[in-house]
């Protein structure tokens, strides 16, 4: 049950993996023993100083953490309100926040003696990050990717291949992230004995939402310390884009019990929430069960999952991590959305004002900032997660802007 006034927003999930009424373990029986084994192993790893030491060491020397905290002066001036700061996870090795989680999960896979890695990917960032850690640790890697995403994220497909991964295009459904995840689950069910599934977002059966959040929380922990040091106070507002919700929960979670810090998650509104062509599961969906967890889903009245749309392949998913579903219901985090057009404008705005080419995913967060920053006082502080860089998106953006390359 959802509590009205929890003492802490940071003590979820319960021991069955439930965040209020959300989360849980909805998988085929073949996977259950494995999921339970993973949970046990993760608990042990959390208590093991050697695990943490290796994770921290790789994040520092391989990923390049801590990522900078950057004050954006010209964007702030342009919007004329609150100060805008960016947590620069786009400067990580491989160009997005996804690598934080992959480092954690591959260390778990090795602990469990698994010798084969599978992953799903949408934008290809998680696929690249997984292929990267597999190369680093010498494990074979298979990445399932929707055929449509293979097309619109071709640079990342080539990156994965260079890193030695096998990319398997998935043609079922609309050929996007949801279909890739189905196929990865099918592979996993058939190869449980030697295979570890590195899930790319804070969703899936328990304990994935919890462990992905914990690995990504490095973002929020660093941000909290950096902002306190640089500004002498906590931020007034955190903003992050939401696909499955891993970069957002990573930024938000360490601040959840700081009551003065407001938080805004930004879903992809695609062509707009009045039609079907969007990927805003909280704004336009209903609770249901998919991919191992109970959460808000885009679905019809019969419980059939409807296909989302977003210009950003990384946000094009009809569900959302269960912790966000819970945070929405408790009211602790506010959720809004940005359309394809708004994200494209924000993308160009950041290029022009700060000399940073953002990925289309965080461009949604920036679009939300352009609306809220002007309404806030000049001494207020907004911190947004710049969770990915835009190199992978230049072809999509060129196409959308009608530019021949």
């Amino acid at each position, binding site marked *: 049950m959802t509590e009205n006034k929890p003492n802490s927003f940071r003590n979820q999930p319960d021991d069955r993996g439930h965040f209020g009424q959300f989360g849980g373990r909805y998988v085929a029986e073949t996977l259950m023993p494995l999921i339970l084994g993973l949970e046990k192993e993760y608990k042990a790893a959390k208590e093991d100083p050697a695990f943490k030491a290796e994770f921290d060491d790789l994040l520092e020397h391989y990923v390049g953490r801590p990522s900078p905290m950057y004050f954006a002066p010209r964007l702030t001036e342009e919007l004329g309100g609150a100060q805008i700061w960016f947590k620069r996870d786009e400067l990580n090795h491989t160009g997005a926040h996804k690598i934080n989680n992959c480092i954690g999960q591959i260390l778990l896979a090795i602990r469990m003696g698994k010798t084969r890695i599978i992953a799903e990917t949408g934008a290809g960032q998680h696929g690249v990050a997984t292929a990267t850690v597999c190369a680093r640790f010498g494990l074979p890697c298979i990445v399932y990717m929707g055929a449509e995403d293979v097309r619109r994220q071709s640079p990342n497909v080539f990156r994965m291949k260079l890193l030695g991964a096998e990319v398997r295009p998935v043609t079922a459904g609309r050929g996007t992230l949801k279909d890739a995840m189905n196929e990865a689950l099918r592979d996993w069910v058939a190869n449980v004995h030697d295979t570890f599934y590195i899930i790319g977002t804070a969703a899936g059966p328990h304990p994935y939402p919890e462990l992905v959040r914990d690995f990504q929380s490095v973002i929020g922990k660093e941000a909290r310390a950096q902002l306190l040091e640089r500004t002498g106070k906590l931020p007034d507002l955190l903003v992050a884009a939401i696909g499955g919700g891993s970069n957002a929960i990573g930024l938000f979670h360490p601040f959840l019990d700081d009551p003065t810090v407001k938080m805004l998650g930004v879903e992809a509104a695609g062509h707009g929430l009045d039609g079907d062509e969007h990927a805003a599961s909280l704004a336009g969906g209903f609770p249901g*069960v998919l991919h191992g967890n109970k959460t808000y889903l885009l679905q019809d009245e019969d*419980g059939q999952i409807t296909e989302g749309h977003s210009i950003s392949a990384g946000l094009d998913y009809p569900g959302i991590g269960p912790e966000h579903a819970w945070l929405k219901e408790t009211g602790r985090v506010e959720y809004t959305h940005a359309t394809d057009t708004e994200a494209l404008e924000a993308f160009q705005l950041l290029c022009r004002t700060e000399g940073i080419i953002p990925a289309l995913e965080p461009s949604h967060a920036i679009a939300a900032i352009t609306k809220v920053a002007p309404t806030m006082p000049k001494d207020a502080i907004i911190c947004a997660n710049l969770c990915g860089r835009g190199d992978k998106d230049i072809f999509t953006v060129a196409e959308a802007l009608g530019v021949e390359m």
Partner: protein
Amino acid sequence: MAPAIMTRFTDTFSRGPALVCFITAGDGDTAANLDAMVEGGADVIELGMPFTDPMADGPAIQNANIRSLGKETKTADVLQIATDFRARHPDVPLVLMGYANPMIRRGPEWFADAAEKAGVDGVICVDLAPEEDEDLGPALRAKGIAPIRLATPTTDEARLPMVLDKSAGFLYYVSVAGITGKQSAALADIKSNVSRIKQHTDLPVAVGFGVRTPEQAEAIAKVADGVVVGSALVEIVAEHGENAPQHLCALVEKLANAVHSAR
């Protein structure tokens, strides 16, 4: 438990090894296909509820789901197919098999009530782990519908009691750690796993996944209480369309003879 329902399962399995036949609702002329399977000798019918994301199914059943949804099959249509089947075949146990989301979309009570009115005896919810039983189990049991659980090669000794707890009708032993389709398990493994399971339960144990031929069916019937055939039948529906009933009847007849020969 409502007596009529449990009686259908008990009567059926008391006659010896049973043939359980699966097809996807709304793929082809489902009523005619079901009748053909009963005519061929199917003892239990599993009617698949189509879902957009059948994560535990291989290409054959995935495609059946896509074809069915492509023809706009609704939950109401699946329930109507069940209702009509029950009217034509008062004694054949009928099981709905599918994924959690379509079953709980309008609330578990709504679904259990509708299934009971349609004359359904049991429900298999592929992605509802026993750990999440409360999402559907209590509602089904309140209506006397058997929640049929799956056990797999990965279900170890420690976990079996939890899987069996509150399960009813029969136990579905998934003989391969994998998705539905062509891969099949070694008979020796099936035999040892079935006898392992039977030490923990009096429920009949039906074995499925990868069973396609009468030879396989006969061998499994010698070591289990039921044999489940799905993909092989769904492929016939795909291949023969409106002419599927005669082909289904022919294959089911061979399978049924093979299974019943072990009686």
